[in-house]
């Protein structure tokens, strides 16, 4: 999310707040459109899997959610790191804004995984390396959020949860490579950088569209949450109010 933004110009909440406000509608529209096309492809264009029948269609929500859970954790840790390094409040706010959405996608990855595991493995849950490390990721998100709420001083809360987030980033490669490093019940990567895709083209396109949709959704939701956080922490900026409202307030006096 940071790429393409001139941070010398946009590193203050005052600049970031209206910028985020302008970007949110665009990302929301693109997210909804991509979700529509992705679901259509996933349910009406992609063929039935010859091994798993129709149960495989959970992939179009499971894999994008799982990717987002890991990706968002890394982005959160990067913002936390920038915050610690530069002692920059907006960076901590970005990290704070990412955590709940990341936790939600982690929960969804686990839940849809259970929904897929039951018909294919005969079990909702197994203590397999992939599943266990993903569950730990959920606890890490919970830890980052709980640590923040348990510390009253905002600056200390920022720094403590940032350190926690940074240390926990080691789990992300463990999740990603768990299917290679250990014998797991969880199937290996369906898409890999070295061997390409093992899926039918329409399946792959549907999955990538849903992933892109979740990205756009996450950007929109995180920008809107960071605006809330700025408003709560710094008191809502006056430029947020339309001149008419300010006049009304003045009249109410």
């Amino acid at each position: 999310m940071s790429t393409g933004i001139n941070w010398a110009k946009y590193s203050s909440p005052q600049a970031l707040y209206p910028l985020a406000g302008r970007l949110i509608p665009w990302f929301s529209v693109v997210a909804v459109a991509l979700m529509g096309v992705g679901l259509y492809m996933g349910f009406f264009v992609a063929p039935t899997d010859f091994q798993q029948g129709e149960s495989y269609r959970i992939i179009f929500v499971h894999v994008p959610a799982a990717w987002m859970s890991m990706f968002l954790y890394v982005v959160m840790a990067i913002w936390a790191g920038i915050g610690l390094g530069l002692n920059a409040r907006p960076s901590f706010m970005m990290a704070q804004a990412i955590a709940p959405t990341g936790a939600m996608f982690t929960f969804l990855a686990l839940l849809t995984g259970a929904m897929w595991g039951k018909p294919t493995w005969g079990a909702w849950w197994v203590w397999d390396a992939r599943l266990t490390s993903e569950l730990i990721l959920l606890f890490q998100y919970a830890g980052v959020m709980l640590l923040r709420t348990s510390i009253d001083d905002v600056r200390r809360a920022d720094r403590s949860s940032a350190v926690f987030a940074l240390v926990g980033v080691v789990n992300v490669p463990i999740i990603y490579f768990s299917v290679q490093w250990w014998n797991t019940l969880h199937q290996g990567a369906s898409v890999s950088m070295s061997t390409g895709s093992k899926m039918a083209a329409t399946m792959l396109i549907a999955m990538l569209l849903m992933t892109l949709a979740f990205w756009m959704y996450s950007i929109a939701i995180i920008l809107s949450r960071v605006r809330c956080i700025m408003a709560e922490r710094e008191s809502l900026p006056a430029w947020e109010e339309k001149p008419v409202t300010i006049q009304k307030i003045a009249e109410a006096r």
Partner: protein
Amino acid sequence: MQWGSASEFFAMGGYGIYVWTSYVVTALCLVWEVLALWRRRVAARAEHRAMLLGGTNETAT
């Protein structure tokens, strides 16, 4: 397209309960997150307006 009828589509080859639970819960989570943020924003604005009003009253007295 591989669906002969709507009921066939909803049955998902016998995996309907698993497939639809996944999608419905995901949809509920996304919608809930959007609504929760909207409410949070409304609350933040209300608090800010109250603060503005309170502030002007303070200076008036």
